[in-house]
């Protein structure tokens, strides 16, 4: 079969790439999925069942709350900031600098962002000390920075820039001609936004919000650096069960928690892709 031989010859140069991806991406993923239902070679739903107990459920609820709140805040404020950036002169150095800063904060911040907020509103933070001297307020009281509300603040700090990066292409897809057409037909600026721009941008806006949700849901570094004790959210619960296998009274619980994370992120990303395809019809 010459056809088959050709296929093999064509596929051969792909082998190194495939090997690395299979060993370091697919095998770990399959390990997680399989190990969450197989314990010591025996099929068992115990680990999955443990996902529906107190600690795991409350971690999931807090993670959903954190991701939902910061996706909403990030999407709203990020869209506003993206509009500010797009409507300023495109060649300016300021614009390049703002976009570069957004990329850094959105995608490579991690641990550094936790320390940024420790230096700002932590116990000896700069803003904390100012407030204490000026008004006698104690900003760092009760350690809120290390709780869910603190995480919401710090996550918003990287969610807004991510929204800017994801949303700017959609905003740039709005053509000037559409606004001119609307205005020449007698529309006011407000009417143009309400009747043309916002309906066109809605799928992109919702899609970006979903991406932000998935991003926050899977984020680990910032929370891990900020919260060293306890495990209020799902990623930190995974850490706890990885570091000490007996902490939750069950070995291999991390696999089930990781599976839960895959499922949530995959569902959200699927919805995201559907929305992006829809918005690409007009804005591309």
């Amino acid at each position: 079969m010459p056809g088959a031989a050709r296929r093999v010859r064509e596929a051969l140069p792909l082998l190194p790439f495939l090997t690395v991806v299979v060993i370091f991406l697919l095998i770990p993923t399959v390990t997680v999925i399989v190990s969450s239902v197989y314990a010591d070679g025996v099929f068992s739903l115990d680990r999955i069942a443990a996902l529906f107990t107190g600690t795991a459920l409350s971690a999931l609820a807090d993670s959903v709350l954190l991701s939902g709140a910061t996706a909403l805040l990030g999407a709203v404020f990020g869209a506003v900031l993206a509009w500010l950036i797009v409507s300023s002169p495109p060649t300016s150095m300021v614009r390049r600098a703002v976009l570069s800063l957004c990329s850094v904060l959105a995608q490579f911040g991690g641990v550094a962002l936790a320390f940024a907020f420790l230096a700002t509103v932590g116990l000896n933070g700069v803003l904390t000390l100012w407030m204490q001297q000026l008004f006698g307020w104690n900003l760092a009281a009760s350690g809120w920075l290390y709780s869910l509300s603190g995480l919401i603040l710090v996550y918003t700090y990287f969610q807004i820039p991510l929204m800017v990066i994801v949303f700017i292409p959609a905003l740039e897809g709005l053509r000037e001609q559409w606004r001119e057409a609307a205005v020449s037909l007698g529309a006011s600026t407000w009417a143009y936004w309400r009747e043309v721009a916002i309906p066109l941008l809605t799928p992109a806006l919702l899609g970006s919000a979903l991406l932000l949700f998935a991003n926050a849901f899977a984020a680990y570094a910032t929370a891990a650096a900020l919260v060293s004790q306890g495990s209020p959210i799902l990623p930190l619960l995974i850490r706890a069960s990885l570091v000490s296998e007996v902490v939750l009274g069950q070995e291999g619980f991390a696999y089930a928690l990781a599976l839960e994370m895959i499922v949530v992120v995959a569902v959200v990303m699927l919805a995201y892709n559907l929305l992006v395809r829809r918005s690409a019809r007009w804005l591309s």
Partner: protein
Amino acid sequence: MRAATVVRGALWVVFGLFFLFPLYAMADFSTRNLIAGGRTGQAWANLVTDQALYQAIVVSLLLAVFTVAAMLVLLVPTMIWVRLRAPWARGPVEFLCLLPLTIPALVIVVGLRNVYLWVTYLLGDSALTLTFVYVVVVLPFAYRALDAALAAIDLQTLSEAARSLGAGWTATIVRVVVPNIWSGILSAAFISIAVVLGEYTIASLSGYETLQVQIVLIGKSDGPTSVAASLATLLFGFALLLLLSLVTRGRRRARTLAPGVTV
């Protein structure tokens, strides 16, 4: 119209304060002398004088170099080959490259234990073995950058011309294609460096002491030094990406960086 200008100005100020104040606070915090009052550069000096931290910086920089090299060696020939000779594989390769966006690093590290038993058995127990996983982590970013660059050239004609003049595949790739997709390679490399230097999840949960892991460790006893190192990595990443946007010009950078947008 004037009201709009005022609103825009006010919004810029609010966003500017929200994003720049924490960075200013890091600079202030890391130069504060906690004991005698006033200013000190001790925390910044620790970046090179603190043995553990310095070692971690070296490890992270080496990891960045190895990851970029491995990523390029693995991805560039594969992507060229797929476009020229195996178009049927383009969809699957793209899918695999973008898959790490859907499978969080945390999940990979949970499932990685058995794989790493073999890796450390075969290659020894070194932080540099993280290179393999990091190649996977940077795949989506690198793929987008390289894909955009490859789409912008007439790959078919270039390679046929090179091949008809007697060049082998290696010479075609290294001497003809690579110089033409230089900006894409640069983007992929810069973004990968930024990702590797900022990576914490996999390194910390596999127990290797990279820069970020060390920053968190030191943070428990010496806040200013951790803050100084954090600010240094942010500034380094910022400089890297700003340089990239100046080199590549145009608007493509913002697009290639955006996760999931260029589907």
